[in-house]
């Protein structure tokens, strides 16, 4: 039996005709004419006839050549997707026509070119794919895109956006977008997020950002600087939050008015450039009480290590010896804080001063995840320890906010 075949089975003494969908936990899943799926033992299912081939039809799409050209790069997100109502499978759609036919209003904002360097679940992202993605964005901008939209699963979107931010100097907006509720549901946040991201991709912005719901309402999207944003909720629409910084823009919905923050970097403020080497041999570890110092032994071959320490940036004294050894052996260690908010300051307590003496670099107010991505990039640029330290402590792409302003 294959999906779509007509079958029959007997339930309560009556014969029921149905369509075979799939196998699930040793049961045949059948769709009844009422639309309900049921799972029955294979032994009870009789094949009646083969299914007919069903073919989807896309309505034709016309793009307005007077509108600015925007590039959509899909990495496997479901900004435009279609449910197979028989199997429940969600098919991601990534050609311009497919995307526009799913979200027709996009066609009033721009002319779209699309590209799909790969298609994965975002938890399977890895640094080599960040590089591929950055190159793809670079190519699109060089080819004249007025703005770039990257559709991405939300799980690791902040890491990817941050990585692109370090690798790419962009004169145009590079906007990452995703959805927290899958595109196959009528309440999905995908349409609003997509439209807002297209609006901000056309705006006077020249940096890498993430555009997602600003609240749980369908009222506006917040546009977060790639290096200051973190997914702060597993499932809420407004999961993405700027930490220690304000969003660089907001886009109201449904009128799609873009308001830029005074700190936003404008179009053409940076010249297009790509520096796409990254050192993958880097790790992030969170300290906790009683952490066994032996755990650090796994990192002896690592070139970089970010620690999310406690409070102002501390670890237990028991780890100090191993940390000194790692630094001596050439591992760059950057201290960040598991508090997420606030600044690392290892000058206040003895533990911190010991860390500084051991050669650990204070990560200022960088998010631990951003610090990891930055460290990979910095180690891809230079091997000079002094340069590494300087680059890590310098604000390159908004990842370090030199002043902790009250109210953020």
């Amino acid at each position, binding site marked *: 039996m294959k999906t779509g075949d007509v079958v029959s089975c007997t*339930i*309560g*003494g*009556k014969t*029921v005709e149905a369509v075979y969908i799939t196998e*699930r*936990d040793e*049961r045949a*899943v059948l*769709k*009844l*004419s*009422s*639309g*309900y*799926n*049921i*799972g*029955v*033992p294979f032994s009870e299912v009789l094949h009646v006839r083969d299914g007919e081939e*069903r073919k*989807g*039809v*896309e*309505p034709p799409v016309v793009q307005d050549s007077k509108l600015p050209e925007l590039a959509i790069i899909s990495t496997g997100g479901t900004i435009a997707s*279609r*449910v*197979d*109502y*028989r*199997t*429940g499978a*969600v*098919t991601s759609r990534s050609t311009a026509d497919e995307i526009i*036919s*799913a979200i027709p209003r996009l066609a009033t904002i721009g002319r779209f070119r699309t590209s799909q360097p790969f298609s994965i679940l975002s938890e399977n992202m890895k640094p080599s794919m960040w590089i591929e993605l950055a190159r793809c964005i670079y190519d699109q901008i060089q080819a004249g895109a007025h703005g770039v939209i990257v559709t991405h699963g939300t799980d690791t979107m902040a890491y990817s956006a941050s990585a692109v931010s370090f690798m790419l100097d962009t004169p145009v907006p590079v906007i990452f977008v995703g959805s*927290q*509720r*899958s*595109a*196959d*549901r*009528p*309440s*999905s946040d995908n*349409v*609003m997020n997509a439209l807002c991201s297209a609006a901000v991709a056309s705006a006077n912005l020249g940096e890498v950002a993430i555009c997602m719901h600003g609240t*749980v*309402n*369908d*009222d506006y999207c917040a546009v977060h600087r790639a290096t200051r944003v973190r997914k702060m909720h*597993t*499932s*809420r*629409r407004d999961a993405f939050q700027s930490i220690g910084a304000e969003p660089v823009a907001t886009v109201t919905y*449904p009128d799609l008015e873009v308001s830029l923050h005074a700190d936003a970097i404008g179009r053409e403020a940076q010249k297009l450039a790509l520096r796409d080497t990254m050192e993958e041999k880097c790790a992030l570890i969170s300290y906790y009480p009683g952490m066994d110092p032996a755990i650090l032994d796994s990192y002896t071959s690592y070139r970089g290590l970010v620690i999310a320490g406690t409070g102002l940036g501390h670890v237990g004294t028991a780890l100090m010896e191993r940390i000194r050894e790692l630094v001596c052996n050439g591992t760059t260690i950057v201290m960040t804080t598991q508090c997420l908010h606030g600044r690392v300051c290892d000058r206040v307590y003895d533990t911190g001063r010991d860390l500084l003496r051991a050669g650990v670099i204070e990560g200022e107010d960088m998010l631990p995840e951003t610090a990891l991505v930055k460290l990979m990039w910095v180690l891809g640029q230079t091997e000079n320890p002094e340069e590494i330290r300087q680059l890590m402590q310098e604000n390159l792409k908004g990842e370090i906010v030199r002043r902790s302003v009250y109210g953020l």
Partner: protein
Amino acid sequence: MDYKALGLTAGIEIHQQLDTAEKLYCRCPTILRNIDERNGEIRRYLRATVSEMGVIDRAAEEEMKQMRFFSYYAYNTTCLVENDDEPPTPMNPEALQITLTIAKMLSMTPISQVHTMRKMVIDGSNTTGFQRTALVAMNGIAGGNCIIESICLEEEAAQRVTDKTFSLDRLGIPLVEITTAPCMHTPEEVKEIAEYIGMILRSTRKVKRGLGTIRQDVNISIRDGARVEIKGVQELDLIPEVVSREVERQVSLLAIREELRSRGAEVPQGELDVTDLFSSTKSKVLKKKAPCIMAATLKGFAGIVGREIQPGRRLGSEMSDYAKKCGVGGLFHTDELPAYGVTEEEVAALRERALAGDGDCVIIVSGTEQQATCAIRQALKRAGMALEGVPEETRKMLPEGSSAYMRPLPGAARMYPETDVLPVEITEEMMAAIDLPELLVEVAARFTRELGIDSALARHIAYSDRLPTFEKAIAAGIKPSLAARTLISTLRELSRDGVDCGGIPDETLIDLLLRVNSGEVAKEAIPDILRALAGGAPLEEAIQSVGPTFSVSDLETLIEGIVAERAEFIRDRKMASLGPVMGIVMKEVRGRIDGQIVADVLKRSIEKRI
């Protein structure tokens, strides 16, 4: 009407809320709230999603004619699941257990692996844009010969507060949907089956009671007619009326079809902007809406659009229902004009512009250009259907038993799997372990048998919302007659007087009855005490408010005095004096001590003197 001759077939769907501790796909309690208690509001758009055939479900498409911004009230008893901001939990096992019990009572066969589906509903009543529903069992039997096709376990929708505002407290309460085969052939039969299934449901003692907790949808068709589903019939007694009116409607629509065909009527496509004709109209309705007025001509429809097809409903009403989906207030047609401030001259000009002959009917709608265009096309669509006969529709019941169009019957395209909920296995062991509850009819018989309660009253008790109270009262040692009278008759009488005793907890009622049982409170005082309790007073205060209780020794003293004063009369009349003197005593003590006690004491007192 001769329903057999007309070929009536009807089936019902019964929707019954379950009385579980938690909701079906989250862990919130299943309690309703006052909207003033809300602690948050969220606002969302919904849009139909496209199926793999590039097709939007026809029911969903209808709901999409307007882009709608919905508002939802949240409470401290709702959570992110109702907000559609968190994946659902696994299916509530308690709800599934109740559903399986009902299935077993109806001799149904459970599905081996139950799959939760999403049924697309974008009228705003579900924050997700779909209702979760799972087919749990199939093919049983009710009341001897009515086939039960299926039982589904699904989540309740949010309660509508205003047009676009919903309250999330109700969303997600478990609901069973029991669907019968179309095996009924008279209006009365439909009612009987509904009643029987209701009794089965309540026999589980695990279903919600009270207004809105059970709803019947009725599927009706006649020969040459079409299947029409009428939703939201809440009172059993209205079912026969609803069925007979729908039969009447289908009969009328078939007659109209024949007449239209014989006239050679047709429905040309295309609308006509006639806004200018009404630029100086006196019609308030047209003026109010008015940026745009559209018209269309129905060839050969004159007189038919205005024809009644059901009490209070005309073919024009049906067309109006369709038009309203576009946000307009309704439509006018020349069968009813001039009227509503539209003058004869305006009608004439309209007819002229619309090139309408005497046999034709012109319809007009007003609204924004987009609304009016959409609405006139919808009306034309419905007019076209009149040439075909009876359209398959989902309709909603109107207060008197007629119905209005809601949306097309939904197709299977609106149903797709809920990927966030894992399927549940139902094993034979699970089914075998279910103890069938005592049916309420059996309960009633037992009350008569064991407690000596009159069989009509016993049935009343068994079917009443206060059955658990009654059982607790009996267990507490209260006399069955006292409990039955109080919980059934007294409460019903008070309810007729507009006193709502629904909020009085079982414990309080039983406490009160115990005091009556012990003589501490007089039986006669019960109604007044219940009134006070309904007003929110605590029991002690309610009892005090009716008057201090009267002890037996107080009574004896009082009676001694009264009897002494009337010693002569008593000596004269002997025991015949009991009645008159009793009256005098009761005037003093009514409601403060049991009348039987008064009679006993008085009798003894009189006996001493004669």
